[in-house]
């Protein structure tokens, strides 16, 4: 069944969404910021659909309403950050007022707001807790020394203040970030995300993911929601404990894939004490931002998202019970099945309902390693050589080629896996 390695079949999934948006969605004509001029301006809207920001069956009106509500939630959070909220104002009263307003917006929006509402409540709780904590330790001084707002204080709790430093050193080569306003957008989106995901917190590398999103979206709140959805795919990778990082699971799968497809390099890497493929960690953590050029990375991301597209994503993210996990019924209906991305379709078709960890990214990493196979086998006499050989590839790989190769590896992997 070699036909699935054909990229045109990927595009058959990808382009209907494009054309759909071109014809039916008047909201997508927003102009692109300069650094990406030349790229179709519907990119931001396509991303929102690919990442499950909206129900694929929603109307333009429904999306607008949801968008407004989301923007409102972001505004509230940023208001806190920007000091419009002070202890003297009485945060409880202020919060109650926000809640009322949010509540009145909810019924208007209809479906897809449960999670937003829960998020709003969660945010409120965290806000209260943090402010109370700060109050208890009577540290207005904490605010002064560690940052200018509760949000800054929260981020500063990251040992070593790496968050602030990293914002300043994200994609500095792009003229886009010479504008301080754009950098502060980067900071805001980071702050909101960290605020709402305390279990994960700030992890170095997420800036690399966030930066293209900030460039693509004019509205900060829209950028946040798109980023939030993109991070859903990466959350498990960046989750860390004292002894392990989530990404190691993906690296384990990578090792499996390489072993199955061609045992030679795997054996070689094992002999060199490849420490569980940790040398490939950067590719997984920042999803190829450092290995490919900026535009090639976006190309790869979009292809991966399109291939892994699941029309139920929105329902799952928004915790809509009735629409959740109905992949089983889908498997029998070819019409519904067609709505899935090509890669995802295979898993739905085989009736596997659980989230599979061999995402297409793993196969792209495998394909990158494969391009270096010869050098690795011939020249690598130690783990240092491996890291060096892979370090050399920074920024000069061909996205399209890597992707085609990844699909071939996937085919081969499935074939071999079925044989065993």
């Amino acid at each position: 069944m070699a036909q699935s390695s054909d990229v045109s079949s990927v595009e058959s999934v990808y382009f209907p969404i494009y054309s759909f948006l071109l014809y039916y969605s008047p909201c997508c004509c927003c102009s692109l910021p300069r650094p990406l001029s030349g790229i179709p301006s519907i990119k931001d809207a396509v991303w929102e659909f690919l990442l499950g920001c909206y129900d694929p069956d929603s109307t333009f009106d429904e999306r607008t309403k949801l968008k407004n509500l989301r923007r409102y939630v972001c505004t509230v959070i940023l208001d806190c950050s920007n000091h419009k909220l002070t202890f003297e104002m009485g945060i409880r009263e202020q919060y109650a007022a926000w809640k009322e307003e949010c509540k009145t917006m909810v019924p208007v929006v209809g479906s897809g707001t449960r999670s937003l509402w829960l998020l709003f409540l969660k945010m409120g709780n965290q806000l209260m807790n943090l402010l109370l904590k700060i109050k208890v330790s009577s540290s207005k001084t904490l605010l002064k020394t560690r940052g200018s707002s509760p949000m800054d204080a929260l981020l500063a709790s990251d040992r070593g203040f790496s968050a602030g430093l990293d914002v300043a050193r994200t994609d500095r080569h792009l003229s886009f970030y010479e504008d301080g306003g754009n950098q502060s957008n980067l900071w805001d989106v980071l702050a909101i995300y960290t605020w709402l995901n305390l279990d994960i917190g700030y992890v170095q590398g997420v800036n690399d993911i966030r930066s293209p999103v900030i460039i693509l979206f004019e509205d900060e709140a829209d950028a946040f929601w798109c980023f939030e959805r993109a991070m859903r795919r990466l959350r498990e990778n960046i989750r860390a404990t004292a002894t392990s990082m989530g990404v190691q699971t993906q690296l384990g799968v990578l090792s499996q894939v390489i072993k199955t497809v061609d045992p030679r390099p795997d054996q070689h890497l094992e002999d060199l004490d490849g420490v569980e493929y940790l040398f490939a960690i950067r590719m997984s953590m920042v999803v190829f931002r450092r290995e490919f050029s900026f535009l090639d990375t976006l190309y790869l991301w979009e292809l991966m998202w399109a291939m892994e597209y699941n029309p139920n994503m929105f329902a799952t993210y928004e915790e809509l019970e009735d629409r959740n996990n109905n992949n089983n019924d889908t498997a029998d209906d070819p019409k519904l099945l067609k709505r899935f991305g090509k890669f995802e379709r295979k898993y739905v078709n085989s009736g596997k309902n659980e989230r599979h960890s061999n995402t297409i990214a793993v196969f792209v990493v495998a394909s990158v390693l494969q391009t270096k196979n010869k050098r690795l086998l011939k020249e690598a006499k130690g783990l240092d050589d491996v890291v060096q050989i892979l370090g050399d590839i920074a920024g000069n790989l061909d996205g399209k080629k890597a992707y085609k190769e990844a699909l071939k590896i996937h085919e081969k992997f499935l074939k071999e896996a079925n044989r065993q």
Partner: protein
Amino acid sequence: MGAYRAEDDYDYLFKVVLTGDSGVGKSNLLSRFTRNDFSNDSRATIGVEFATRSIQCDDKIVKAQIWDTAGQERYRAITSAYYRGAVGALLVYDVTRHVTFENVERWLKELRDHTDANIVIMLVGNKADLRHLRAISTEDAKGFAERENTFFMETSALEALNVENAFTEVLTEIYRVVSKKALEAGDDPTTALPKGQTINVGGRDDISAVKKPGCCSA
């Protein structure tokens, strides 16, 4: 200068790690030492990166294999795996940010937990060029280094100040320990240790903080 030599032409190979908080300048110290390069556009290191450079000690060529690790605590589970086999370490803090100095203690513990007891450690106060922003005095840091029995130096990767000296001193000390150990064992150090193998400074040599810079020239 003779500093940059053919890759495989060396007598000793020493593994050295760079650790310390995020944003203290580890990656730029490494690029300054190995490529005489400083980048204003450097990004956060994800996982580990790596570079080498050879220097001369006595009549021997010592190749340093330097591992640059991510500074964020979250990455420790992964970066600590790379400490194994290290015979030297530069523990870097930023002289303008006190918190990075406060965290040195934890990094030191991390290093000692994961490496051989005789590892040569140097405390490095980077960004010494930012004189008007200095938050940690040289004396405080020196005092700490003496108590912890580590070497100490202040550097500026930007101005190429002391970077060469810092790496060279650590490598010289490792070389001194290794060759002394080999002499005591009655071996010729060059033949006793096969080429390309990482050397463990396993002996009982007392590596003290007040050693003078020795024989090496880069």
